[in-house]
Every structure is written in C-alpha cells, then in structure tokens.
C-alpha cells in the first residue's frame, strides 16, 4: 500500500496492530505524501480514532512502526521526549476542537508557540493574531471558546494546530456537526492554507464527501482494517460490497 518512498511521505504507518493487549486496529499500513491529501474513510467505530491515537502516541501498539517526518516512533511506546518532538511536528484538529475553556481564543492559539518555541509573548500574540485571520476568525479573538459555534471552534483549533507550521496536519471528523455549507467553507480554507503551508493532510472521516473530487488517496477502514485503497474511481468499482455501500449515501455510513 505504501508505494511511495519514505522521504516523500510525511507520515508512514507500517503493519500497525494495537493497542497492546486489546487490539482494535489490525495490520494497518498507509502513507501520507508531503503536501498531499490522504483520507481515511470509514464508518463510526471502524478504528479511525484509534489509528489517530496511535499516530499521536496516545496508545501503545502491539506491532508496527510509525514514521513522522522521517523520525521513527517505536509504536510500542516511546519516551516522553521523543513524543514531544513528534508532537511539535504534528498539527491535530480533534472532533471536539479541544480548546482550553479558561483561555480566550487568541490565547489558545498562542499556547503551542509559548510551549514549544522561544517566541516572546509579543511575537506569539502577533503570530496567533495572524493565524486566526488566516483561518477566517478575526473580529472576536478575545472571546472565550464556549461563546463560539462548532464551526468557529474548529477553525480556532485549526489555527492552533498550524501554529508551529507542522509538516503534517491530522483532522478527525472535520465535518461532523457542520451543515454542508459550513463543511465546504472549511474545506476551502483548508486547501487555501495547504497551498501556503505545504503540509500533508490526513483526514479521518465517515463523510463520503472526502471520497471523491480530490487527487488524494482514499483508504477505506472497516472493522479496524484497511480493506480498500485508491482514488475515488477505484473505490467506485471496488469489489467490496461494504465499500460500495459506504460510498452510496443511502448506505451504512
């Protein structure tokens, strides 16, 4: 499945089975090209979030390797220092945005800059301000996250994820809870930002909108395994009944 060489990929997952002791994903291999778009498509509880947790070092794997930006992480568990380095090069937008409630929108975006770089508070503030403008939030950056709606929260989380200019951006269910208009606006912002930042994007979603209409590779995950990979056209002619059902909007997705 990972035909591309490691240097072209910003993320490589090889034969990943985990978590240790109670595996929920089995022998998953995939690669995400630098500056490209990779989609992991699957119904809810298919193991997408578990895959994300492994990539982020939140779970110990039983077998397999994860390579982020050329750095091998032993998926069976890594020291905090190694994880910390990997995390500073991975931007992530969680389904629930996960913004700190006691900090304002602007302060949330400043946080990774203050934590992971030696930027001065003033520099961090300027950069955060600029990032928020870039994701389309400018008027209300002194508001608290709870005052924003779901789409705006996700945009703030996106600004925070991009604060360290990571080569890899992970998005978990970016469209869940958004109407189709807000979802396509978010997609536009993403592709605009990608042109500027050149980061590789991995989207984990059950939303079939990500199956078609982009040049990226789609991996279909069902029951913890990747059962089909390819572009939209390949998937449309998949041998797997479950893939065709998933792509059919009336189907199980």
């Amino acid at each position, binding site marked *: 499945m990972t035909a591309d060489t490691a240097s072209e990929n910003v993320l490589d997952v090889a034969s990943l089975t985990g978590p240790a002791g109670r595996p929920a994903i089995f022998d998953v291999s995939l690669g995400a090209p630098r500056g490209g778009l990779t989609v992991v498509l699957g119904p809810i509880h298919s193991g997408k979030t578990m895959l994300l947790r492994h990539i982020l070092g939140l779970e110990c794997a039983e077998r397999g390797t994860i390579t982020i930006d050329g750095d091998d992480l032993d998926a069976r568990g890594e020291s*905090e220092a190694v994880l910390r380095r990997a995390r500073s090069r991975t931007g992530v937008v969680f389904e629930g945005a*996960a913004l700190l409630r006691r900090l304002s929108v602007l302060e949330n975006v400043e946080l990774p800059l203050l*934590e992971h770089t030696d930027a001065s*508070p003033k520099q961090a503030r300027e950069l955060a301000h600029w990032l928020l403008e870039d994701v389309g939030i400018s008027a209300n950056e002194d508001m608290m996250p709870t005052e924003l709606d779901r789409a705006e929260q996700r945009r703030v989380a996106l600004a925070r994820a991009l604060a360290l200019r990571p080569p890899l951006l992970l998005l978990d269910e970016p469209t869940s809870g958004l109407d189709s208009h807000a979802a396509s606006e978010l997609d536009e912002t993403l592709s605009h930002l990608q042109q500027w930042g050149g980061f590789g994007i991995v989207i984990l979603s059950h939303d079939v909108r990500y199956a078609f209409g982009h040049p990226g590779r789609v991996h279909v995950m069902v029951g913890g395994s990747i059962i089909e990979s390819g572009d939209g056209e390949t998937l449309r002619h998949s041998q797997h009944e479950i893939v065709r059902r998933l792509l059919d909007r009336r189907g199980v997705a």
Partner: protein
Amino acid sequence: MTSLPPDVLPDGVPNVLLDPRTTGSQRAAAGATGRFVSRSRLAIGALYWFAWLSVSRRAAVGTGVRREFENLGVGALRLVASSAVLMGLIATFQVAAQLAQYGAQSVSISAIGWFGARELGPIAVALLVVARSASAIAGELASMRANAEIDALRAMGLDPVKYLIAPKLAALFFALPFLTIIADGLIVLGGLIGALAVLGFGTSFFFETFRGAFTLRDMAIGLFKSVTFAFVIIFIAADEGLNVESRVTAISEAATRAVIFSVVGVLAADTVVNAVFYFIPRLL
C-alpha cells in the same frame, strides 16, 4: 521556526501521571500502591507547575490564573460574606446562651476574638468553597476527560496538570486566604451586631474585650490553614475529575465524591494542623 527548548522536567516526572497510554485495567491492576503513586505525582506536579507559574512571565497561562481567581475567589465573595455575618451572630448567641447561667455572656466576645480568625473563618470559608466549586472542578475535568480533551492536550505536548490544575491551584492559593480575611472581618461584624442588638453591650466594650482576646498570630495560623485547605480541595477535586471512569453516570459520581472527600479532607487537615499546634505548644 525557533528551536525546541529542552524538556523542563526529567522524563516523566508529572507527565507520566496522566499517561493515557495507561489503560483502565492497568490502572485498576495498579491497585492501592499505583493510586498512591499517581496521586503523589499529581500533588508534586501541581506544586511544581504552581512554582513555575509564579516565576514565569508567559502570558497565556497567567491570564488563566486570573480567570480562575475570578471564578473561584471573587465569585464566592457574596456567599462567603453573607455566611460570615450570620456565623458571627450564631457564634455569639451560642456562647452567650451557654455562659448566661454563669453571668459571663461577655466571654462570647472573647470567643469571637480567639475562635473566629483561628478556626471559624478558615474552616467555614473552605467548606463554602467546597460546596460552591469542588463539584464544578471535578465535573469540568471529568467531562474534559470523557470528551478526550485531556488526551488532546497531551497530543499537543501540553501537560494537563500545568494547564488545567496548576492555574486552579494558584488561584485558590490566593483566593482562600483572601476570602478568609474578609470572612474574619465579617464574623466580627456579626458578633458586634449580636453583642449590641441582643446582648446589650456597648461598642467600646465590645472592641476592648475583642482586642484583649484577638492576636495577629491567630489570624496568621488561620491563613496558614486556608492555604493548606486550598491544596486539599484542588488535589481531591482534580484527582476525582481526572480519574473518572468511562460510564454515563461517572461524571456526576465524580463530582459528588469530590465534594464528600473535600469536606472530609478539609476537616482532616484542620485536625492535623490543630493537633500539631496543640502538642507542640511552642509553635503557638
């Protein structure tokens, strides 16, 4: 892009504490010893990051402390103020009623003097803050854990103890003594109202008797207690909130347990402090 600073701590000092890679069953298997270790780490981590907060000039977390102070401290002001006046009244009546048969009602004024600042003020404020905030703190952390927000913080390389618990601890370290000083004053006011309106003493007599019994050292001991209580409240509420199980009712149960154990914890800490001062009289 600027370079990464080296880890502030040796690998895993407070960081291992909330390691989400530890599964629920591992946590259960760790048993009492494991819980003791993880709680010690929580306590040490919280104090470490409190110390870091007090010297750091990094703006974002600092404003978090200010908002926690507004929430935990300033928000409790009305509750504490009204309760303190009432407690001053009650204490005066109770002592006066007990001592009436000896014709020694005026001792109730002295009692306010030596008991108010040293015992009644700090313990009442701590219990009021528990009633108002312990369940909120535990509930907030528990819901963050249930929504995987705590994991999200870790995934971004942000230590949850540093960003969620240390600001609360820092805020309460200031808020509780601050509320205690206000309560001490208002307990005296309540006592004054009782002495004037009901017991029929004069203002100057009240303050003379009061000054004879009140010492600043009592107040200092009271403030020392309130700092101890602040730590106990945050530690217990945070421990309950962060170790919530993944069940539907678990969040409300964690909030309830946080209140119960905080009350017991505050009273236990008070007993210990009192015992220390009782058995080592030189400290008095």
